[in-house]
């Protein structure tokens, strides 16, 4: 949204394409039409989201929702919209496809009621439906706090918030976090809310098992060492009917990757992002990026990046002079550098540690779609497989409808572990369009159109 508004205000004609029913992405997610939510239930970001969404109502901007971009060929993007396929022409393209919670396998993680933290938050915040009556939240990092708050607002009781790190580990990082007062006050406000509602936070713990036959009936947590390995004998059972985990994010880089954008591996987040210049340009001329796909940094950073990318796209499309674009980019580029330092410090502190993957053995389901177990993947590696691609061909892990988004990271961790190589040496598999499943009937219904910028 931020890129679209900036580009439009710089004179470009913009088409916003979004797979969801409403523009706004994860942070500014709205409740469905028809909900009437009293203001006391709404958060500050709601007002900011509405303000930004209001700016989309600009004569230069066309918004197309429920529009899945499934590929890019030269200067066109391919869109599946309401059972029809369109190709939309644009001089410049801004990709801001966001991120999803990093999937983490542990015994029982496929039971109904084991959720990602973001998924639990979405159901509570945009649908006002309780993911469970009494929940456990487990993960690492400050993102668990807004999730807890959304759940409390939806009247979910939270048995405990289980954080893998310990405050003492935060001390060495205080230097790089220094000066980020707005972020701290936000975190403090969230914390204060939790304290007042009596939600206990257990530091240095993680989830080790979900209990139940057909659905979650309980959770087992354990103390962890510095590498997040469970300490035997420290287990404890908590009665809950849903569990949400939030151990960081993976970026939706498939569209950018399939468009030929260069990627970079992030050591702290242990995953891939799109490589870009300070002006948010990729190695592909006319393709710009913004938000979580360039690195996990939260909404404030994503907004600055959107602004920069919008200016760069308008410059590329010829509605803004190079000089004006340079001028206007200066301030957001400076802001971005500042916010990025903070994001990097958080990623270093809360990024996944080896113990998180200790359950990837034996009968543990790794690929949820095709139900492939860790031992099948390990056997395949023992037989000589060296890439996620060859494992996919042999075991079907990653061949299901999610196209590897859920299991890919864990398959990579098993490969790195069993072959004793660095995770960064395992290439991100090549992605070809369509990047998400599109029915053939849709591909055959083609009505194309032209526009100047797709974003």
């Amino acid at each position: 949204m931020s890129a679209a508004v900036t580009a439009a205000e710089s004179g470009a004609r913009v088409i916003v394409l979004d797979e969801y029913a409403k523009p706004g992405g994860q942070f500014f997610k709205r409740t469905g039409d028809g909900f009437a939510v009293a203001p006391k239930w709404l958060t500050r970001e709601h007002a900011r989201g509405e303000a930004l969404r209001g700016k989309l109502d600009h004569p230069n901007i066309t918004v197309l929702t429920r529009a899945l971009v499934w590929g890019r060929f030269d200067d066109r993007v391919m869109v599946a919209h309401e059972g029809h396929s369109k190709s939309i022409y644009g001089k410049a393209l801004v990709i801001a496809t966001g991120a999803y919670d990093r999937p983490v396998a542990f015994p029982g993680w496929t039971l109904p009621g084991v959720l990602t933290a973001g998924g639990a938050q979405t159901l509570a915040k945009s649908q006002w439906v309780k993911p469970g009556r009494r929940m456990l939240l487990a993960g690492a990092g400050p993102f668990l706090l807004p999730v807890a708050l959304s759940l409390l607002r939806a009247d979910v009781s939270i048995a405990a918030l289980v954080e893998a790190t310990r405050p003492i580990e935060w001390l060495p990082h205080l230097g790089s976090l220094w000066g980020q007062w707005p972020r701290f006050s936000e975190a403090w406000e969230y914390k204060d809310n939790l304290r007042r509602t009596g939600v206990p936070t257990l530091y240095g713990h993680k989830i080790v098992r979900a209990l139940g036959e057909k659905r979650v009936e309980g959770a087992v947590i354990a103390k962890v060492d510095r590498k997040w390995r469970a300490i035997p004998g420290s287990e404890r059972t908590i009665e809950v009917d849903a569990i949400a985990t939030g151990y960081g994010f993976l970026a939706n880089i498939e569209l950018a990757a399939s468009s030929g954008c260069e990627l970079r591996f992030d050591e702290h987040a242990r995953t891939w992002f799109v490589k870009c210049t300070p002006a948010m340009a990729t190695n592909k001329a006319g393709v710009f990026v913004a938000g979580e796909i360039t690195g996990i940094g939260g909404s404030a950073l994503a907004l600055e990046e959107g602004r920069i990318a919008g200016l760069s796209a308008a410059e590329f499309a010829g509605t803004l002079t190079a000089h004006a674009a340079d001028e206007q980019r200066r301030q957001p580029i400076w802001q971005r550098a500042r916010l990025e330092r903070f994001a990097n410090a958080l990623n270093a502190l809360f990024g996944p540690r080896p113990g998180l993957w200790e359950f990837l053995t034996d009968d543990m389901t790794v690929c949820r779609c095709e139900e492939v177990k860790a031992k099948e993947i390990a056997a395949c590696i023992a037989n000589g497989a060296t890439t996620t691609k060859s494992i996919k061909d042999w075991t079907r892990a990653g061949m299901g409808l999610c196209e590897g988004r859920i299991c890919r990271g864990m398959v990579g961790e098993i490969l790195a572990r069993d072959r004793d190589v660095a995770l960064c040496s395992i290439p991100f598999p090549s992605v070809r369009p369509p990047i998400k499943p599109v029915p053939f009937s849709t591909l055959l219904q083609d009505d194309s159109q032209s526009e100047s910028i797709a974003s």
Partner: protein
Amino acid sequence: MAPERTSGDLRTAGIGRGWPVPVFVDGKEVQAFEGETVLAVLWASGDHTLHTTARTHEPRGFFCGIGVCFDCLVTIDGIVNLRACLEPVRSGMKIKRQQDPGYTHAR
């Protein structure tokens, strides 16, 4: 706007919802509300098995909630493998929980 609703299901009490919309879940009429997703309607009912898997017939619920994992697959008006978390309800919609997801490949 429909009146506020308080009930025993998993919908948060005290939140005003849209107009009631009837939908059919496995042939049974269920009351949904305008603006809800199919996932919200199914989850609120308390039956959290959205589909069972092809290989081991495990029950599955939803996982990511944002359209990424394809674990919330249901059949809507005869179209298989739709993501319940992204589909808004429409009056008269026929929703089916999938036994064996709509995969057609042989294993």
